[in-house]
Structures are given as structure tokens and as C-alpha cells.
């Protein structure tokens, strides 16, 4: 088998409806499998371990069934669907273009026989008969044109010729959508970032770490100038908002207050409000300070990065903050970010500038009692740093997707709700020296409705022609197998 015949074979395979259906089934089956087996990007690792035994999980990972939708072979499958759609369109295009650009205007006798709907009327005056046909066609909403070929004259009328392109529009829209998705799969990214109030950050944690990278630095910094939550009377969240400013090269370049469902778009990067929270770092801590020698206890509020003055000219500052601590080898370590068991190291500086270091280990004793100092301190309350949880995505391919969606909407509208209707009229010999008015028509879909319409047209024509009708040939019974057979084989 030569190279050329292999090529022809491949081309024919890709252009066949059978291949298309096969690909649809394969994509459908793998998509279904991807919803039954837990997928890495959308499931917690613990859930996956709970659901499958270690051996099964290892096997699934190796076969690639735990991340089907990002697997190379799934993207390849979608690419193959794209190629198939392109080949099908290229293959069927010449036919559709011929129908569109060079419509058969004059019905030759051979062509007449192939039409599903025809009728004949005996006429006396050719020109008068044609003008009657023209008038009746006009009444049915057609704009007929007069055609002649080899001295024979006739009429040609059509409606919604663009309907032949519906298939291409729908297939093209799918190509747009897939292409957009594939572009996003290659160059797009998606991640999240938590920005505390008053700070500016620019590094996001990627959602699916392609190529092992789990962080990405944005071309700008996001500063949070305020964030808040509004709640309904029953306490459920009503609105989350964040006042954001973007800083590029040290300058503020854009600002917007975002809410859920209303993202911030800058240079193709979209920033979404996704959550709202408190960080485990307090903005200020308030202590009760009780003089050791006796006296009134007083409250003192200390900013995390500042100090507060006490009554006797001493100052208090926070040297270390551990939200959840544990002690090992006489050292304090951080256990987690949950601020429910804090440890605080305080610095008490006297007027001479000498600093005393004191510890509060909350779960042991909320006090500095027993540590040699003029005061005993205890944690009273805290104000917390608020942060806004943002989702950041860059998906330039989405414009292809939206263009595809719009094209598809039009394509389906045309495909299902328009039809290319064509009607011809011609003067023919009746074989006995007389003349006949021949009319015939066809459509590319909804044949049953067209058949009824054509019957009405025939009746109207007969009435207009008056008593001239002598022979009337019934329309051929339509072969139901051909009904709704559209553009592809038209």
C-alpha cells in the first residue's frame, strides 16, 4: 500500500461519522470514569487514602486514572476530536459551498425526476402561466427569479440558503471551545493567595502544580486595603468584600472593591473573592498588668510590632508570638497555626533601658507569676489580623470558549430552526404537442412540514390557473428514510 493510499485511508477514517461517534463514546466513557474514581485535583489526599487501599491507589496513579482530565492522553483525545471535526468540515465543504454559491437555478428534466415534490399543469399560454406561478410564489413569501436555459424558461425561488452552513458553524464552534480549553491547559494557571489587611503580596499557590512548581509570582502585588463580611440576621454570610489595589513597579496601577461573583480583571489576570478569614497573628494583644507589690490591676494594649507604656515609665513589647506551642528541651516551638494555645514572650524595659524577658505559656498558666518582675501579666484579649482569600486565574483561552459558545448558539438555532427550501418552475412539453407548467421543490429538513406547504402551494396554483389544469400528478410518496437528511449528503 502506497503512502498516498494510506493517507487517503486515514483521511477517510477521520472524515467518517462512524469515527466521530466512536470518539464521542470514548470521551464519554473516560469522563464518566473520571467522576467515579476520585480525582487528585478535587479531592483531599486523606479522602483518597480512605477510599482506596495503598496498592489500588498506587495502581490507579500509575495508570493515570486519578487525574484523567489533565492526563496527556485525555488532552490528546480532545485534540483528536478537534482534528476529526476539521477534517469532516473540509471534506463536506465543497458540496455545501456548491449548493450555496452555484445553486441549480434551472431544473433540467433529469433533475426534476430527483425531486421529492412535483406537480404538472397543462397550460395554454406559457408566459401567462409563469407569471401566475410567480404571483403565487410571491404570496407564499418567496421572491422568484426568471431563469432561462437553452431557450426554455422557468422560475427559481429559495429561502434561508444560509441554512446549509449550520453544520460548519456548530463544528467550528466546538473547535473554538476545544482550542480555548487546550490553550488554557498549556499556558493558563489558577491559584490562591491570602492577603492580610494592609499588606501587599504577589505570590500565589497553584491549584494543580504542573511541572512540579507549586508557587507562581504574579507580575504585580495585590494590596488589601480592607475586607469585610456582612451577615444576614440568622448569621449566614450575605456579602464578602475586599478593597484591593494592584501595585506594579512600586506604583498603584488599578484599584477595585470586589465581591463574590464580581472579579477584578487586570491584564488578563482575574482576581476572585473566595473566602474571608482571620490570620493566626494578632494585630494587638491586651494584657492585664497587676503590680507585684500590690495595687490596682490595669489593662494594657500592645501592638504586635510596637510597644506600650506602663504607669511607672516602663515599656512593654511583644518579642515572640507562637499561636499554638509545645515545649521540648526547654525551647518553645510552634505546633500549628490555630491560635488556641498561644505562647507569648514579653519584653519589659525599664527606664534605664534594661529589658526583662517574660513568658506566658497559655495552657500551663495564663500569667507571668513567679518570673521576677514588677508586674504579673496575663493575656486578656486580642484583636486579629483579618485577611482576604483570593482566587487568581489566568485563562486567556476563555475568549475562544465564549466565541465558540456564541457561534454554537447561532449554529444550533440555524441547524434546528431554519431550512433551505427551493422551488423550481419550468415550461415543458407534454409530449402531445401541448405545453405543461412543471413545478417542483425540496428542502433539507422538516420534509413533512414542507410537503404540507407544497400541497397548499399546488392548490393555490391550480385555483389561479383556473380551468387550465388537466393533468395533475401526485407527489411521489416520500421515502421516510430520507426525511430530515440534511446538509451532509445534500
Amino acid at each position, binding site marked *: 500500500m502506497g503512502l498516498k493510499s494510506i493517507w487517503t485511508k486515514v483521511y477517510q477514517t477521520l472524515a467518517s461519522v462512524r469515527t466521530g461517534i466512536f470518539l464521542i463514546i470514548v470521551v*464519554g466513557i473516560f469522563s464518566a470514569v473520571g467522576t467515579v474514581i476520585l480525582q487528585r485535583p478535587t479531592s483531599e489526599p486523606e479522602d483518597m487514602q480512605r477510599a482506596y487501599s495503598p496498592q489500588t491507589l498506587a495502581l490507579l496513579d500509575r495508570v493515570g486514572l486519578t487525574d484523567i482530565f489533565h492526563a496527556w492522553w485525555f488532552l490528546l483525545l480532545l485534540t483528536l476530536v478537534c482534528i476529526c471535526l476539521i477534517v469532516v468540515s473540509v471534506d463536506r465543504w465543497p458540496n455545501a459551498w456548491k449548493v450555496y454559491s452555484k445553486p441549480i437555478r434551472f431544473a433540467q428534466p433529469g433533475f426534476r425526476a430527483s425531486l421529492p415534490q412535483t406537480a404538472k399543469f397543462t397550460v395554454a399560454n406559457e408566459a401567462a402561466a409563469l407569471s401566475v406561478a410567480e404571483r403565487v410564489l410571491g404570496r407564499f413569501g418567496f421572491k422568484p427569479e426568471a431563469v432561462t436555459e437553452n431557450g426554455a424558461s422557468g422560475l427559481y425561488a429559495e429561502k434561508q440558503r444560509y441554512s446549509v452552513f449550520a453544520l460548519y458553524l456548530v463544528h467550528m464552534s466546538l473547535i473554538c471551545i476545544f482550542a480555548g480549553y487546550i490553550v488554557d491547559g498549556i499556558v493558563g494557571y489558577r491559584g490562591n493567595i491570602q492577603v492580610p489587611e494592609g499588606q501587599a503580596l504577589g505570590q500565589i499557590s497553584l491549584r494543580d502544580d504542573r511541572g512540579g512548581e507549586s508557587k507562581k509570582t504574579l507580575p504585580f502585588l495585590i494590596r488589601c486595603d480592607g475586607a469585610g463580611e456582612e451577615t444576614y440576621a440568622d448569621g449566614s454570610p450575605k456579602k464578602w468584600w475586599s478593597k484591593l489595589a494592584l501595585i506594579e513597579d512600586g506604583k498603584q496601577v488599578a484599584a477595585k472593591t470586589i465581591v463574590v461573583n464580581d472579579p477584578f480583571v487586570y491584564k488578563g489576570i482575574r482576581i476572585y473573592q473566595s473566602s474571608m478569614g482571620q490570620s493566626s497573628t494578632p494585630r494587638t494583644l491586651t494584657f492585664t498588668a497587676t503590680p507585684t507589690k500590690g495595687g490596682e490591676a490595669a489593662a494594657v494594649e500592645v501592638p504586635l510590632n510596637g510597644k506600650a507604656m506602663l504607669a511607672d515609665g516602663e515599656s512593654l513589647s511583644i518579642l515572640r508570638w507562637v499561636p499554638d506551642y509545645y515545649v521540648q528541651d526547654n525551647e518553645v516551638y510552634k505546633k500549628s497555626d490555630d491560635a488556641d494555645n498561644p505562647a507569648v514572650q514579653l519584653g519589659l524595659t525599664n527606664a534605664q533601658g534594661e529589658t526583662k524577658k517574660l513568658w506566658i505559656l497559655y495552657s500551663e498558666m495564663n500569667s507571668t507569676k513567679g518570673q521576677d518582675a514588677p508586674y504579673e501579666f496575663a493575656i486578656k484579649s486580642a484583636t486579629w489580623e483579618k485577611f482576604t482569600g483570593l482566587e487568581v486565574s489566568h485563562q486567556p483561552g476563555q475568549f475562544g470558549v465564549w466565541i465558540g459558545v456564541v457561534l454554537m448558539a447561532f449554529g444550533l438555532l440555524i441547524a434546528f430552526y431554519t431550512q433551505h427550501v427551493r422551488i423550481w418552475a419550468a415550461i415543458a412539453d407534454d409530449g402531445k404537442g401541448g405545453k405543461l407548467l412543471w413545478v417542483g421543490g425540496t428542502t433539507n429538513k422538516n420534509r413533512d412540514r414542507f410537503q404540507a406547504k407544497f400541497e397548499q402551494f399546488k392548490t393555490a396554483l391550480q385555483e389561479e390557473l383556473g380551468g387550465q389544469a388537466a393533468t395533475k400528478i401526485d407527489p411521489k410518496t416520500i421515502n421516510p428514510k430520507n426525511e430530515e437528511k440534511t446538509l451532509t449528503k445534500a
Partner: protein
Amino acid sequence: MSEARVEQQRPASGAALLVLVGLGIAFALLVALLALAKTHSGPIYGEANMLYTALVLYAGAATLYMGYGVTGIERYVSAASLLTAIGFAANTAAVAHRWSVAGRPPFSNMYEMLLSFVWTLALLTLIAERAYKVKIIGSITMPITVVSVILMQLLPSDVRPLVPALQSTWLQVHVTLAMLSYAACAVSFALAMMFLIQDGMKTESFQALTSAGMVAIYASMLITRFRSGTLAVTAYDLESKSEVMVSRGHPLFIQIPDLGWLYLLVLLSALVPLLLYIAGKVKKDPSLFDSASKGMFVSLMLQAAGLAIFIARVKGGQYSAPGVDGVYATALPANPFLLSGIVGGIVAGLLYLLLLWRREGLQRMMPAADDLDRVTYKIICIAFPLLTLMIAAGAYWANQAWGSYWSWDPKETWAAITWLVYAGYLHMRITRGWRGRRAAWFAILGFAVVIFTFFGVTYLLPGLHAYAAG
């Protein structure tokens, strides 16, 4: 063979009809009492009163449509149609009232979705009857509306505030389109089934199909909820009218003792007729088909008993969960998957019995096979663009709310699979000229996938779309 048996059946006598209508009226009265037991405050044109009016009218219409299904008396249809139309007006008022009170279209929770679903179904019934002259459709759709409205009485109906992610016009567009396209798919399914009846598919084949459906329902229920003899149901806090959650997205499952065994028995009872059918096919012994029909009857009785016991146990007790202290109550609305599965199985079984006993009469009332085939295709031509736009609107909303237009979450993926199935149907029909039986089976497959997308994905597969269950 089955034809011969069908002919032996006597036509429904006047007494049978009387019983049927009597039952319908009793049913309507019961429903009325149910609704009266709830104290309705607020204006007379308010939502609760309007919905109650709609319920009574729909119940009457459903009874009349079913009466038509059994007797074939045309008079019933015009009366049923009138009742449906008035009920629809009341239903519209209920929807409008809720919309104006909430200040947004009613699609945000199960109650509001059912409200809109019932409205759409009644509208489609009227359209199918007036425009397409498919009169029998009401005897399938109207009972569904009645069951839905009764279910709604059990659900929390207060206007709840929307969490931020759901405050989106695109979401509402998405849900509206979903409702419309799924309703169209349901209608195409009903038409395809009617086509198979008119096309002369054997009654025992319908029996096998119904049994297979029942087996699928009980198997999926037992696979997900059977816990060593008990049946796991979702715990429900009756005070706050909400599910008890272990953590976000994970409801607490409590176990009703022994109910698991009962449903295992029901599963076996549904399996027996299917096996008898297969045996009859293999041995070419038609007498086995008769046994299978009897088996269906027994299974249906067991299923009805199962439903009654389920309701009784759910309403009257508190149950524990392993590893969790204390006992918890549960409620029917917390278990829509189980409830609709059981009710769906029973409805399918009753429809089969109707076919078994009244096939000839039914066939006389239905449009011709060719018409059904064509209308099925036309309805899918409506459903498919709606399905496409529904997916697109959903993607646009996801892009606004979550940062990506497509993230392959199970609901999205199954919506895409549904789309692929109907795309396959259209290709086979248009380019390969598939029509008749093959096309009808394809339309049935499409609706099965729709059902899976609607229920299966939410209750069988985990997903981001847990909002909808609330």
C-alpha cells in the same frame, strides 16, 4: 402470546371506574387535610394558599387524566385540561408571590426548585396537549406534579437568604435553562416509551425494562446506604429544618435498624421477575412471562409496604450513628434520593400494570407510531439547544464565582456526557437515518443519563454542587 392474554382482559367496568374516581377524591381530601393542618397565615393570594389551590386542582386533574388512561373517555380530558389550566394560574401566582417576597427568582433550594419544576411540567403538559394533541401525557405528568407538591409541604418553605456565591443572575439563567431542558428530555422519554408501545414492542419486554429499572434503583440505594442490615439516612434537625452536618459538605448518616434487610428483600423481589423473563427468553417458554408478571405484582406490593414502613420509621423515631454520641431524628425531605427512588419504582410498576391490563385501550388513545417518532425528534431538537445554553450559562457563572469556566467536577462532567449522548442521537438520526426503535432507545438512554446527572451525581458521587441539596 402476550397479545392473546391482553385480549382476555375484560374492559374496565363501571364499578372499577367508580372505585378509581372515589380513590382520587379521597386522595384529594387527604391532601386537603394535610395542607389545612399546616397553619397558613398571610394574605389569601399568598404563596401557601395559592399552592394549596394548585395542589387540589392538580390532584383532580391527575385523577381525571388517569381515569382517561383507564377508560378512554374523551370528556375527562377536557375537564382535566381545564383543572390543570386553573391550577397552573394558581401555581403562577404562587411563583410570582414568592419571587416578589424574596426579590429574586425562586431557584435557590429544593423547595423553590420543585415549585418551578411543577410550574414547568404543568405548562409543558398543556402545550403537549394543545399543540401536539398528546392527550395521554397528563396521566403521567400530573401525578408527578401532585407528588412534587406534597413533597414540598414537607420541605422548609421560608425564604432563606442566599450565600454570596449563589447571588448571581447567571446562576438563575443556568437553573432555569436546566429545568426547561430536563423537562423537555423527560417529555421526549415519555414519547419514546409511547412509541415503543405503538411500535408493538412486546409487553413482556416492558416488564423486563421496568424490572431492570427497579433493580437499578434498589441496587444503587443498597450499595450506598446498606450498613450491616441497617439503612443509612441523613440526620435532620427538626427545629432548624436543616441537615445535621459532620463537616462542610459531609452530612451525618444515622442508621435505621433492619430496614436494610427489608430493602434487600425488595431488591430480590424485583430481581425475580427479571430472571424469570430471561429464563423465558432462553427456554422460549412464554408461560414464564406470566409468572414474571405475577412476580411484578408481588414486588410492587412489597415496594409499597417498603415505602409505608420507610415513612413510618423516618417520622417516628430517633436513631444513632456508629462512633457518634446521642440519637438524631431524620425527615423525608432530608432523603430525597431514597424517597424519589422508592416512589419512582412504584410509579414505574403501576404504569407497567396499566400497560399489562389496558394495552389495547392505551394504544387507541395514543398518536400513531410515526407521529410519536417525529415529535420525539422535535422535542429533542428543543432540548438540545437548551442543554447547550444551560451548560454555557453554568460555565459562565462558574467563571464568575470560582475562577474557572470548567473544572471537571462530576456535575459538570455528567452534564457534558448528557450533551454527548444527545449529540450522538442527532448525528445518528440526521446522517445515518436512525429512526423508529433504535432512535427511541437512544432517547431513553439520554433521559437515563439526565436522571443520573440530576440525582446520581448529587447523591452517589461527591461534588461541588452540594449547595443544591440544601
